[in-house]
């Protein structure tokens, strides 16, 4: 019964999202586009953190590389957008494979520090390699051409682009969800709970961790690729460790224990930011207060706390 209600709520939310451009103020198309992209970024991080139990502080590297990949191909090669996105996925996955190869052998704080170090290395390269990445100014001034597949879409129209993002995010989220439910996903969760025991079962824990890390990088790359046409600029800040902190905060705000937690966290984060910054510039102070309260009293996040309470209610 409750399962049906949840499914119904999800369906209503999805219909609401599809219909958004017809009823919401124009400005909210931008807000929700950003929520969806950052939600996918946070969900890709949660595959690494919430499922496999690895707290990465370098996840922005894959997001940023995806953004640069799309921005640079649009600028120099003018590829159809779909191919740019595929390149972003590949770039995110490849970078995650390399960084993961060195990082997943370590645990806990050492893993966190190593991913942070690699993340800052990637940031430094983008920041200083002026002839290729245009340094601190980043890649801007690219134009949006065709989508690809012969589809006639005006990507420059924010409402059209919103629907493109919605389709990609929903598909990617579905794939991520299925990965989480598969036997592979179960093993990842088992690794989080007890890596020794998984190893004693004869499974190579390090390979599974590397696979999860690479997959997380691929989806973060996709989110980055979707971000480039939205922001119209790929800048080194997107690779900075402070951007790596955003999916961590979003996952904690929404709840790491449920698949949709990071999406809810992303919505909370961006809506709070939008509303609070229109009142005061000190929005980080308010975020800090909200976050401290969440961690102290609702450790399972907003969605997690609600679902725990609701599902256990007789």
């Amino acid at each position, binding site marked *: 019964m409750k399962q049906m209600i949840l499914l119904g709520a999800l369906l209503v939310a999805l219909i609401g999202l599809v219909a958004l451009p017809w009823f919401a*103020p124009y400005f909210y198309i*931008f807000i929700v586009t950003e929520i969806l992209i950052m939600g996918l970024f946070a969900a890709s991080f949660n595959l690494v953190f919430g499922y496999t139990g690895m707290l990465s502080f370098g996840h922005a590297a894959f997001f940023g590389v995806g953004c640069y990949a799309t921005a640079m191909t649009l600028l120099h090669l003018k590829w159809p957008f779909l191919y740019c996105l595929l390149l972003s996925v590949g770039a995110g996955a490849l970078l995650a494979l390399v960084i993961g190869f060195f990082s997943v052998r370590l645990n806990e704080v050492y893993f966190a520090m190593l991913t942070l170090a690699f993340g800052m290395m990637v940031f430094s390269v983008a920041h200083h390699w002026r002839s290729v990445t245009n340094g*601190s*100014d980043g890649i*801007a*001034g690219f134009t949006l051409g065709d989508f690809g597949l012969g589809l006639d879409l005006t990507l420059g129209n924010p409402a059209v682009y919103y629907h493109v993002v919605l389709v990609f995010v929903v598909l990617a989220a579905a794939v991520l969800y299925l990965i989480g439910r598969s036997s592979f996903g179960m093993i990842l969760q088992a690794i989080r709970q007890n890596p020794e025991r998984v190893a004693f079962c004869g499974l190579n824990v390090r390979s599974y961790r590397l696979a999860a890390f690479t997959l997380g990088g691929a989806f973060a790359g996709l989110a980055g690729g979707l971000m480039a046409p939205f922001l119209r*600029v790929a*800048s080194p800040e*997107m690779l900075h460790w402070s951007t790596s902190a955003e999916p961590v905060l979003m996952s904690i705000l929404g709840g790491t224990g449920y698949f949709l937690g990071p999406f809810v966290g992303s919505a909370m984060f961006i809506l709070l930011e939008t509303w609070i910054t229109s009142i005061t*510039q000190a929005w980080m102070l308010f975020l800090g207060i909200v976050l401290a309260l969440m961690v102290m009293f609702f450790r399972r996040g907003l969605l997690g706390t609600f679902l725990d309470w609701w599902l256990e209610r007789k």
Partner: protein
Amino acid sequence: MQLLKPARLLITLVAVTGLAGAPAWADDDPIRIGAIYILSGSAANYGKFAQQGIQLAIDEINQDGGVMGRDLEVITEDSQGKASVAIQAARKLVYQDQADVLMGLDSSGVAQGLVPVMPELKKPLIITHAATPDVTGKLCNAYTYRISNNVAQNMKAAAIIAGETGAKRWTTIGPDYAFGHQSWEFFGKALKEANPDVELMSDTAFPRFGAEDFTPFINGVMAAKPDGVLISVWGGDLVNFVRQANNLGFFEQDMEIMFTVGAATEVLSALGEQMPEGVWLSTRYWYDGFDNDVNKRFVSAYIDRYGVPPSYNAEGAYAAVYAYKKAIESAGSTDGDKLAQTLSGMSLDAPNGTIAFRAGDHQALVGPNWGKSGPMNDKHGIRTLADLRIFDGEKVSRTIEETGCKL
């Protein structure tokens, strides 16, 4: 059944057409100006001066009956000096706050990011500070204008002065983004053209924008022993830079020193006597340099209200508001496309003289102001500019072909 009387029909018709056309002229809503400046971090003072310039212009205009009977109103957003933040802010201003026109931008990097987005927003943008030549060059578009001078104009003037000093070996210290790199590029090109025997050194220094410690860069340049140094560091960075350079004896070396935005009053008042005498300082506008009625009124009203002389950023912002007033009145509309067309080729009386937006690239042909730092002006607490030279905007501007702009 009652027949419609002709008179009543006529009244109804007039009422209906009147209602439909009403918003075009009988609108009591204020005309909204969306402004984007740096309001936080090391250059936040520039945003503050710009806001003051805007407010002064708006209050003057509103007291005088507004624009087409409507008041002006400003909504300001912080760009944080980041392109992505400024683009989001511009979307918010246009779609959420219903801004009719946009203005502002302090940073070249921000301008390069935002300008390509303007054709989607379909609102005019007058840049009042950001100086990258690209936005009235290869990135130019129908909606983007600039009322302040750009790097190409300023560096052409700088090269003329540099050539007269006779210094042969030149290097630079500039912020590590578009502005610093383009300042050096355009300075070098103009200097080399006029004086083929100068040497542009490969030892250049580009500290990060917002870097606190400039000591290694200052030491590096002193060790390289150039004859002349072009310094395009600006904002709070420039204040830190000059203080640290004083401590290291940088200004006692036998070198020509040129600050490309050194005569910003934001910087001069923060430094006071710490700004050394006898170095070349440039500004887009020097409050003491223009003997015309608009400037006299502007400077005295500004000092009366805020207690300090207006900076170039305040002047650019003030002039941009008046440019929009004139454009809206001549277009008779606040429609974005109509305004963008009206601004092209339009001229107005600004504090720095009569200026016009060139139709070919939308750049105002305004000349930079260069002078040597002189004795303190005790009343204003800042250095004076001696040997002030106001360059002719026509002479230092690139030709339309050189800009690469196609409109």
